[in-house]
Every structure is written in structure tokens, then in C-alpha cells.
């Protein structure tokens, strides 16, 4: 974020990014994955506004982990989260948050997963190991999620079944491939999450 641009008198959305309907309510989906996996790209591909960044500072809780003796006196770490927005209809505004994979960052935004519809775990096949902990944590928190494999052109291609085995992922959890740069592809990943949520809701009412 460039503070020079944030003159308080003029801070706010561009006219085209204003949210018109009064009486609308928000709902959120979280895109979670490791650094550089394409979370922000995915948010940008489907968002109706250019991705924005909200930041939070981590102090006490992270000090033990992040303390860097070289940076004397610096005991805070800034964690950024990019997000975007899709107006679903006059009453409903969907927000998409690209969230770091490390659980220790999740508490910073007042329970990012609380009240979320669900999550998309974005996977880079070159660094599949970062997803193990993410998947375990989401299961522990009972956050419904689908796994989307970002198809980087330079990354090795594996059959979905092989990746499912590598991730020790239950058969019931949908797994899709997507191109995080492509709007239609990201929309389809979001739709696969929504359809999965419908399936879960239907199972619950049986």
C-alpha cells in the first residue's frame, strides 16, 4: 500500500467501484494457499473491482516465531490480505479473500473463516506440501472446501487422482483444475464450491 496515495480527504472508492444498493448484505468465500500460488490472481480474475489490500499487524502472538535478531526493536509483522468483490444481486455482495496458508495469520482478521460460505484451497503442484496443514486445519474447523489446482504452464501436470492421493484427500471433497488468470476458469472453481455446499446441505436435510 502506498500511503502517499491515501489522502484522507479523497480516500474511498472510484465512482465505478461504488456499491450502489442500500440494504444489501455481505457474504464471503476464502481462497487459501501458500505464497505465490495465485490467490491474488484468482481474486482479480473474478472481482468487479481491482483487488484491494487489507493489512493487519502481528505483535505478541507471532513474536516468538518471527523474531528476527537482525532487525533490532522491530517486533511487529505486517500481514496483507488481498480481496475482491462480486455483486450477486441487489441484496447480496460476495467478497473473496486471498488468505495466507499459515494458520497463525488466520486469527488476525477476527475469524476470517467464521461465517464464510466455504473455502477454495489453491494448490501449486510444485509445492504441494504447503497444503497439508491448510487442509487439516480447515477440516478441524469444519470449513467446507474444494481443492483447485492452479495449472501453471511450467508446473508438472499430474492426474487429479494422483494429486488426491498425494493430498490424502477424501473422495467426497471436489478437486478441480483451474487457471487463476482466467475469469471463466475461476468462476467454475467457485461454482464447484457452491455446488458442493448444496450437496452438503442436501445431505444434512435427509
Amino acid at each position, binding site marked *: *500500500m502506498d*500511503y*502517499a496515495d*491515501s489522502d*484522507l*480527504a479523497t*480516500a*474511498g*472508492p472510484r465512482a465505478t467501484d*461504488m*456499491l450502489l*444498493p*442500500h440494504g*444489501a*448484505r*455481505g*457474504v*464471503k468465500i476464502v481462497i487459501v494457499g501458500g505464497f505465490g500460488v495465485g490467490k491474488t490472481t484468482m481474486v482479480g480474475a*473474478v472481482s468487479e473491482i481491482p483487488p*484491494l*489490500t*487489507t*493489512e*493487519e*499487524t502481528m505483535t505478541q502472538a507471532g513474536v516468538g516465531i518471527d523474531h528476527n535478531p537482525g532487525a533490532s*526493536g*522491530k*517486533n*511487529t509483522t*505486517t500481514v496483507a490480505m488481498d*480481496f475482491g*468483490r*462480486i*455483486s*450477486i*444481486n441487489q*441484496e*447480496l*455482495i*460476495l*467478497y473473496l*479473500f486471498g488468505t495466507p496458508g499459515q494458520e497463525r495469520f488466520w486469527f*488476525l*482478521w*477476527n475469524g476470517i473463516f*467464521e*461465517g*464464510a*460460505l466455504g473455502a477454495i484451497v489453491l494448490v501449486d503442484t510444485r509445492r504441494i506440501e504447503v497444503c497439508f496443514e491448510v487442509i487439516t486445519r480447515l477440516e478441524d474447523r*469444519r470449513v467446507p472446501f474444494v481443492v483447485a489446482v492452479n495449472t501453471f504452464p511450467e508446473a508438472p501436470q499430474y492426474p487429479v487422482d494422483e494429486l488426491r492421493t498425494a493430498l490424502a484427500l477424501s473422495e467426497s471433497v471436489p478437486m478441480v483444475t483451474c487457471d487463476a488468470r482466467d475469469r*471463466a476458469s475461476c*468462476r467454475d472453481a*467457485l*461454482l464447484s464450491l*457452491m455446488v458442493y*455446499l*448444496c450437496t452438503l*446441505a442436501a445431505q*444434512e*436435510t435427509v
Partner: protein
Amino acid sequence: MTSEHSSPWDEGTPVPLYVITGGTGSSAKTFDLVTLIATRSAPDPSMQPEQAAILTMCHYPLSVAEVSAYLSLPFSVVTVLLSQLVDDGHVEAIAPVPVAAFPDRDLLEAVIHGLRRL
């Protein structure tokens, strides 16, 4: 207030965050990232500039996340500012759609319908 190129929460900044929040260290209300904020009164001259800026930008509703992004302030600082504005009746905080363990079918279908139009 601060030098042009440093964010107000950087280490060593001349304006500590407790000045921006008026010394209130904790937010009484719980704001979600997607709680929508809508202005209910005009800014008054005695307000802190950050609070006046919120009233100006939330003429049309914005989420707390957007307010945080546009003000370049951490989410937790924005929630403290918003708490005071809600208490004083300057803004309305519109809670997110409640999502149960298994969300409402109508909600899911509305989102699916909206996504298909993308």
C-alpha cells in the same frame, strides 16, 4: 501526520495507533470483514480526520475490509474507529448474511445464479 512514505503502523512512526483510535484499545463490537458500513450523518468538524473520511466514503455502503483498504489502516484499527461511529449513530453496521454450518439453500442458489452471470 506521518511522512509520505511510511505507513502509520510502521515501527518508529510519529503517530502511534492508540492516537488514531482515541486511546481505546479494544473494540466493543464485533465487526466482520464483510460487515457493511453505511453513513447515517454528515461528518462534523470535531471528528478525527479518519472518522470524517469514513463518513464520506460510506455514503454508499462499503465493507469494513474496503474501508481498511481505502484508509490504509489495519483492520483492527478501523474496527475501533467504527465502534465509536456506530455508538454515536453516525454509521450503521449491517451484519453479514448469517451462514450456519449448512447454509440456506436459497442463499446458495442466489450465489450460484450470480456467479453464472460472470
